[in-house]
């Protein structure tokens, strides 16, 4: 099966030593969890995980041209 392209966006201190936004290729149906671990994060560091602007569970399978956004636990108001 051909690999899929997923846009990954990182925020706050997740950007340090990594990137703001980048396209990565994965096997079809790869779970958010695998992508997160592959970037060197611990799962416990994740505050918010969004796929295409909506909150997604860690086992959510990704599709071609999905956008995965990762935030640490931050907040404000």
């Amino acid at each position: 099966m051909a690999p899929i392209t997923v846009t990954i966006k990182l925020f706050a201190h997740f950007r340090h030593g990594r990137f703001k936004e980048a396209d990565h290729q994965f096997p079809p149906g790869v779970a958010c969890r695998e992508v997160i671990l592959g970037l060197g994060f611990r799962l416990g560091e994740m505050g918010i995980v969004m796929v295409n602007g909506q909150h997604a569970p860690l086992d959510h399978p990704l599709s071609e041209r999905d956008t995965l956004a990762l935030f640490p636990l931050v907040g404000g108001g």
Partner: protein
Amino acid sequence: MDKILRVNMTDLTTAVEEVPAEWAGLGGRALTSTIVAREVPPACHALGPNNKLVFAPGLLSGTAASNSGRLSAGAKSPLTGGIKESNVGGTAAQMFARLGIKALIVEGMPQGEGWYALKVGKDGVTIEEERGLLGLGNFAVIEALQSLFGKKTGVIAIGPAGEMKLTSANISVKDPSGKIRSHGRGGLGAVMGSKRIKFIAIDDEGAPGISLADPEAFKAASRVFTKALMDHPVSGQGLPTYGTNVLVNILHEAGGLPTRNFTHGQFDGHEQICGETMHDTIVARGGKPRHGCHAGCVIQCSQVYHDQEGQYLTSGFEYETIWGLGANCLIKELDDIARADSLMDDLGLDSIETAVAFGVAMEAGILSWGDGKEVVRILREEIGKGTALGRVIGSGAGAVGRTYGVTRVPVVKNQAIPAYDPRSVKGIGITYCTSPMGADHTAGYTIATNILNVGGQVDPLKKEGQIELSRNLQIATAAIDSTGMCIFIAFPALDIPECLPALIDMINARFGAKLTGEDVTGLGKSVLKLERAFNLAAGLTSADDRLPEFFSSDPVAPHQAVWDFTNEEIDAFWDF
């Protein structure tokens, strides 16, 4: 012994009163709202002699409890026509508490054209005529009072906007750096202007200080409470590093960042104004990424922002202001927004109401979208000088919409909607509708659970669970607003089991009380119901608990979300 200070501006007399027994267990919002509900005729004109302006420190203000230095101000709001409480950091709450001042009540109205100042100290309060500082901005007022009375003097003041009784006028309070924090919302600065009081100077020399019923128990609870604040990732790390402005990118990603006067949910300039960019800019220019609005704050979400030359430009530069002039008005230059922020502080304008008013003004064609330089000019030359246009914009989003025939006017109870689109973050829409304060995100901050995964998770795009979420948060917030605590303690309180019990233990140790969690929830409920009853008596109805029509008719990208709650569903909020 705690006391009530009462100032009558009609006959220019003052009195020191005993605290009535039924007010003894109240502070902050619970006390200002109780006094306003008891003493202000709900149908009165908010800028007339029958309105009263009440200041009260929280129950824990003045103690060593972390983040307890908030001061509540209350009155009937000239903006909403309902009851208003707005709280602020700065130095005044702790000074009032150390002086044993449970509340300062300002009533009546002078007959002549004269202006006055109040001086608060250990012997009570005096009224003096004021001439020299009239017409000056807040920064000049603070500077003048510090050179007159010393660096430590406390200041509560209005700028030119309050003197003109504009309904966006705020009340400014000096912070520990000699800069400004604001009782921002609801036009309380206009109420202070209507009483013809330019400033209140506070001297806590010789203050009796705070006594604790059980100092050991207080210390133990305080330690647990502070640890919870430091341990939670939001209050312990996120807010101190990026401030509130970290939300720009989060709300952009979630499609809930109101853009171009609430026509879109995402802003293509988000990276230019976001918290990450702001943090790097502050560090590069030698500003301070961390700063507290009051002594004893361990969260330090504020910051000091410098210009390109490394000179001080503004502080307390918050997400709401940056969103309001940024995404909502399409301004992409953070420096222009910072200049406008500083001017709004100096003139004494609520930066949410004013930013949203500018968005409506842009929709009306008064100025171009994204024109930050023109925003700065209008603030300085039109609002600052009190021209007709300046007064219209300075009277808020609703006033601009009515004057120029704009139909997309994001207000509830005539108060501007803040930085979260209620179509794509539905819980906050319930808070905007039902809060007795008008559209106010802090009244029941569902963003925590809708977006930030704090206190569980409720899908922001679905209707399920939003009423209950908003209700629970509004009840908790009404209680927290009465303690003198910063609302950001809610992040650890929602997630760390020891946090809220420690807060209650501190209140009990301070007063020798035996409050339970249920009592505190009961206090929150009674405050909300008291405020709601005032609003109904003032002539507001459930028809005022609604979002503007366009939220139901115009879907917002990227989720094409609409506001789809029925009136019956919204009204069920009050079933408690």
